[in-house]
């Protein structure tokens, strides 16, 4: 057996785990590890410009590939800088392993230089964490961390490693375990057959059904089965912000996104439904609006791998705990058996009436059945996303930041495939988009990767333009330039009589074209609608260049529909500045 130091074991274990990239930033507490990576490690390391970006890049990589993202940061400020990204991954259940350096064991608790209690600080935002006390424990701890991060409901796992544990002058036998078993951790492998049968019966008796699919379907790779189920039953499907792509957007059964900025037809269908099949979704407050008024006549079937998600906010009539694929597969079997016995199910006539109603809603206010914005002198933000969709053939990876641009992207880019739409839904982290796009582009260098952003968000991690230069990650940055913190302004318009407290930058914005040029990239400005498509095409044609498109859009536009709050139900929406349901 080989003898390795703690630092070398980390390098080797990451290789043995099949890690493709490490995103990180060095510092005192991790120098032994970095030296080991430098000397002998096949896993490439991406040096970011801020540890938050390392976590978002690893996160973007994980969302696009389904494999855990890996982060390496130093103790103290390195660790605390990573916190926002860890919380972002936690809220969206993204698999991630974060290795953080720690001061030497004998200094812990003494307020040593760059000491911070990383296990303590990260506790509420991790799935689990470890503090490694002995070098011999490194291989098994890393194995456990990857196992925990990527199974059950995925999430970030922190491994805190005191510097002395990685010292080069002490070596130990290295053996990387093939598998792990933990008596205290055993995620559900399949759903309860009886419950699934009950659910199948309820689905077949439905007259106004809706399938409400969330990020769990994307993360659990359940899109194909979900699509089969919806098609076999001819049921309408709506996806959450996190679930976009779980069901193909261009299929006629797709109702669009639901929730606060969801489609009229999706929110109306939910409100009037009699049976809701919720899959890998968590009845988030941005979906339900006022919980007590949520879907008054619906019976709810809730499939989730995490029992704590079920009946947390909205009570489920038929809870099913299990991985999405195993449950859907069994449900498809049950449905088939039931229909073989009784071919009159489901009630086709009732479904026809339901579809007729849905098509009416769609025709009235659907975002894809007519132009719902009013063209003024400016380019409309929606038109930018439509252009992006056309130019990329609907096949790009789209990351986004947080704000109006995020909602426009979610509404107007029609995602037909899972893992293509990459955004911070749960935590809503501005600054996520660019580093996430880097991670995606590294995973899929031949694919188009676009980051839809705003001037506010992009400046939260704009330093990563330098990382993009170093590692040649030619992503396309689509800046919906409205010269405001647009989403904040929208709320101030609607709830604070247009008092724009701290939502303008006055004249302080940089010249983005010059700025990106300074980093060695290409910048383009678009002010006229006639130039939009052509410029977009030109940008995407520059395959090996990062292009920043600074697109001036209508600064006064709002995102609609928008749920009426407080006290509104799913069906209470603003449809424009002066029209509500």
């Amino acid at each position, binding site marked *: 057996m080989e003898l390795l130091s703690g630092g070398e074991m980390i390098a080797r274990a990451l290789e043995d785990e099949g890690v493709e990239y490490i995103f990180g930033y060095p510092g005192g507490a991790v120098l032994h590890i970095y030296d080991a990576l430098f000397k002998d490690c096949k896993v490439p390391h991406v040096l970011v410009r801020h540890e938050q970006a390392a976590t978002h890049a690893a996160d973007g990589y994980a969302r696009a590939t389904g494999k855990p993202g890996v982060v390496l940061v130093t103790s103290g400020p390195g660790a605390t800088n990573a916190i926002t990204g860890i919380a972002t991954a936690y809220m969206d259940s993204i698999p991630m392993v974060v290795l953080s350096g720690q001061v030497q064991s004998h200094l812990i608790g003494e307020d040593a230089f760059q000491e911070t209690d990383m296990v303590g600080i990260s506790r509420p935002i991790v799935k689990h964490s470890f503090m490694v006390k002995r070098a011999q424990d490194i291989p098994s701890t890393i194995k456990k961390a990857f196992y925990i991060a990527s199974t059950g409901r995925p999430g970030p796992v922190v491994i805190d490693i005191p510097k002395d544990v990685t010292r080069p002058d002490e070596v130990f036998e290295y053996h990387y375990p093939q598998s792990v078993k933990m008596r*205290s951790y055993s995620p559900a492998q399949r759903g309860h057959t009886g419950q699934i049968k009950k659910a199948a019966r309820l689905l077949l008796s439905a007259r106004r059904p809706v399938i409400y699919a969330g990020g769990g379907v994307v993360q659990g790779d359940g899109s194909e089965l979900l699509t089969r189920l919806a098609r076999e039953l001819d049921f309408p499907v709506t996806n959450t912000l996190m679930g976009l792509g779980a069901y193909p957007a261009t299929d006629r059964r797709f109702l669009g996104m639901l929730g606060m900025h969801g489609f009229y037809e999706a929110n109306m269908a939910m409100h009037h439904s009699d049976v809701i099949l919720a899959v890998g979704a968590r009845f988030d407050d941005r979906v339900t609006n006022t919980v007590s008024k949520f879907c008054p006549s619906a019976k709810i079937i809730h499939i989730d791998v995490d029992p704590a998600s079920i009946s947390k906010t909205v009570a489920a009539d038929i809870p099913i705990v299990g991985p999405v694929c195993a449950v859907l597969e069994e449900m498809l079997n049950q449905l088939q058996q039931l229909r073989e016995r009784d071919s009159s199910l489901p009630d086709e006539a009732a479904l026809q009436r339901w579809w007729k109603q849905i098509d009416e809603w769609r025709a009235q206010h659907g975002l894809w059945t007519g132009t719902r914005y009013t063209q003024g002198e400016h380019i409309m933000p929606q038109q930018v996303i439509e252009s992006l969709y056309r130019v990329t053939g609907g096949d790009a990876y789209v990351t986004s930041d947080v704000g109006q641009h995020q909602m426009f992207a979610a509404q107007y880019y029609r995602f037909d495939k899972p893992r293509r739409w990459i955004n911070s839904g749960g935590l809503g982290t501005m600054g996520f988009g660019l580093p996430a796009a880097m991670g995606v582009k590294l995973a899929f260098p031949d694919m188009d990767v676009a980051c839809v952003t705003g001037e506010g968000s992009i400046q939260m991690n704009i330093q990563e333009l330098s990382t993009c230069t170093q590692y040649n990650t030619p992503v396309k940055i689509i800046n919906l330039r409205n010269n405001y913190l647009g989403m904040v302004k929208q709320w101030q318009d609607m709830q604070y009589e247009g008092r724009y407290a701290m939502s303008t930058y006055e004249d302080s914005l940089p010249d983005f074209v010059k700025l990106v040029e300074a980093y060695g990239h290409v910048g383009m400005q678009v002010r006229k609608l006639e130039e939009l498509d052509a410029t977009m095409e030109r940008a995407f044609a520059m395959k090996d260049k990062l292009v920043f498109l600074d697109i001036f859009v209508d600064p006064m536009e709002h995102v609609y529909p928008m749920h009426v709050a407080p006290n509104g139900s799913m069906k209470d929406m603003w449809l424009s500045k002066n029209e509500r349901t």
Partner: protein
Amino acid sequence: MRRIISMLMENEPGALSRVVGLFSQRGYNIETLNVAATDDPTLSRLTLTTVGDDKQIEQITKHLNKLVDVVKLVDLTEGAHIERDLMLIKVRAQGALRDEVKRTTDIFRGQIVDVGPNVYTIQLTGTSDKLDSFVAAMSEVDILEVVRSGVAGISRGEKILSL
């Protein structure tokens, strides 16, 4: 409703802080908390009491079960169980009150475990209610110090919480 939740967890550093942190993070209350190693040194037994409606208790137990360090968990209040709280209480015992304190202690089947010229230290075990009643019965007496272990509990009969 008051519930007694008892669990086996890995005897690892940080395990307790995850349990306690969960309660503050999600806005639940811990009324009492008792934790110690078991006959198996790799496992600790933690018993806590909390108050909540059925929905809250369901969420609490689900979230506790999700903690990687928690191996097994039971809500003792769902079945017949035995619960014990231990109290050490130091009271001023002078003059006529010395007899009075002794008598009350006997009635509650407590023991005087330390005697000083002016103070008694009494040990009492029982349900939390019993200990509360004892404190109430001591209303005439000058209570100097109260220490309670928090509730420890176990199911009645054959039912066991083990691996």
